[in-house]
């Protein structure tokens, strides 16, 4: 039943990618020589030279640590609400599970039309959530709930919710149908088929995606402060604007440590899960 797909030859793909790259450089009017001129090099070096030494005074360090904990908290809450959004939409975005999917045992044309419609709408909602960047969501929510971390949490939640919803739906849709059919053949209903046949197959992958998105949300949360959505980004913004370059270095170091800690934690958890 599988339709054989013809793969384009590798060479064609490479040529096309090359052309796209060249056109992009042309289109954007990029002058690569600007980056590699001695003048540019000097400027970069002198900027980094100015950063040193970092500001390690107790008062600023305290402020920076509090802000980074806030960033961590924004990323955790944002991811948490994203999971809730994703779980709320996923069941409707999956062809096999939505209304009249074969799991419900019906195969009439009427229910299959309704199903296609519901799947289509759910997928569109997820796409909209996902295609609007966190930063834009943050600006929208600052207008709604005011400056501060809450706007950041909502921004991360909506964007990540869209991403996770799509990923969950794809994973759940692509589980091995064999065990699912064998559970269904015992006369089990949809819920039991889901918990015994589908979820156990999909869970490790879904958790892994979620942890990965959490990692990304830490970095995302650090940026959101730039537009006033709380966390360490706000300190970055202040320090850069006021030319406190020593403080910028402190913040860079803190973000580096935080991101690495979380990356390693997430890597460890994912290894445990798979």
């Amino acid at each position, binding site marked *: 039943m599988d339709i054989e797909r013809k793969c384009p030859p590798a060479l064609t793909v490479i040529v096309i990618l090359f052309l796209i790259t060249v056109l992009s450089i042309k289109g954007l009017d990029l002058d690569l020589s600007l980056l590699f001129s001695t003048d540019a090099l000097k400027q970069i070096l002198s900027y980094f030279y100015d950063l040193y030494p970092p500001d390690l005074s107790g008062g600023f360090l305290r402020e920076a640590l509090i802000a980074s904990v806030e960033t961590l908290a924004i990323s955790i809450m944002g991811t948490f609400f994203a999971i809730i959004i994703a779980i709320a939409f996923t069941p409707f975005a999956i062809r096999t599970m939505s209304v009249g999917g074969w799991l*419900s045992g019906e195969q009439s044309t009427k229910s299959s039309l309704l199903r296609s419609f519901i799947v289509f709408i759910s997928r569109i909602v997820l796409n909209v959530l996902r295609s609007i960047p966190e930063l834009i969501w943050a600006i929208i929510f600052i207008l709604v709930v005011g400056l501060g971390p809450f706007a950041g949490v909502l921004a991360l939640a909506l964007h990540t919710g869209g991403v996770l919803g799509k990923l969950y739906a794809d994973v759940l849709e692509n589980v091995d149908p*064999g065990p699912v059919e064998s559970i269904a*053949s015992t*006369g089990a*209903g949809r*819920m039991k088929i889901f918990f*015994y046949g589908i979820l*156990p197959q999909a869970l490790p992958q879904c958790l892994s995606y979620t942890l990965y998105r959490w990692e990304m949300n830490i970095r995302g949360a650090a940026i959101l402060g730039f537009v006033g959505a709380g966390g360490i980004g706000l300190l970055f913004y202040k320090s850069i604007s006021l030319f406190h370059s020593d403080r910028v270095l402190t913040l860079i170091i803190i973000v580096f440590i935080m991101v690495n800690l979380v990356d390693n934690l997430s890597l460890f958890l994912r290894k445990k899960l798979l």
Partner: protein
Amino acid sequence: MEVSVNNLQKGFGGEAVIKAVSLTVKEGERVAVIGPNGSGKTTLLRLLNLMIFPDQGSIELAGKKVTGLGVREARTVRRGIATVYQSHNLIPRFKVINNVLSGKLGSWSTSKALFSLLIKPLEEVGVREVLEMTGIEDKIYWRTDRLSGGQQQRVAIARALFQDPNLLLADEPFASLDPRSGEKLIEILVGWSKQKNKTLIVTLHHLEFALANFPRIIALKNGTIFFDLPTGQVTPERLQQLYGDDHQGA
């Protein structure tokens, strides 16, 4: 469970896979279904366990018409039919006991099923009993993917027996096993059928197995019944005609 099929037809995407099949299998009877690849064996079994519905014709199980049933009624019928698949279809991450318990899902409530899965597996005694029948009771708390292919098929058979069905269907259950393990497992299925007087329908690739263990052979070819005979009347010539010249024998 008596199985009675009348003028059954089923196609996929306009291509007829089962064409006008009629047959009756009595309660407690053991039947092997043989035939070349693509002859419709798997589709026939999926029609019998109500996982797909026929385009034409009717199926009666234990004297009750099961074609055209609603969702819930179909589920109730499925509880009495267990199916063993070629690729065992177990959840690799589950403990053996949870895979075996999933055979009873049709009669369990959702809350009971979740309790058993998340808190403590239920009915351990019953699970041990079927695992003993299939010879791997010592692996009851192993993760399923740590077992060999043959052991996993034993778990799949245990799951089917745990369901306590009136009709057991098996779709080339030993195709991916070595002949010796296949032989042992077929003895388990046949023994169960004899002891409990339950109907057993197995599609088989190995002709030897079919001829040695089943009193009746149904041969499918191109979606129709090519012959339906007591095993004693199945001659090499008939098998030759069934498979054509390219068949290498069992």
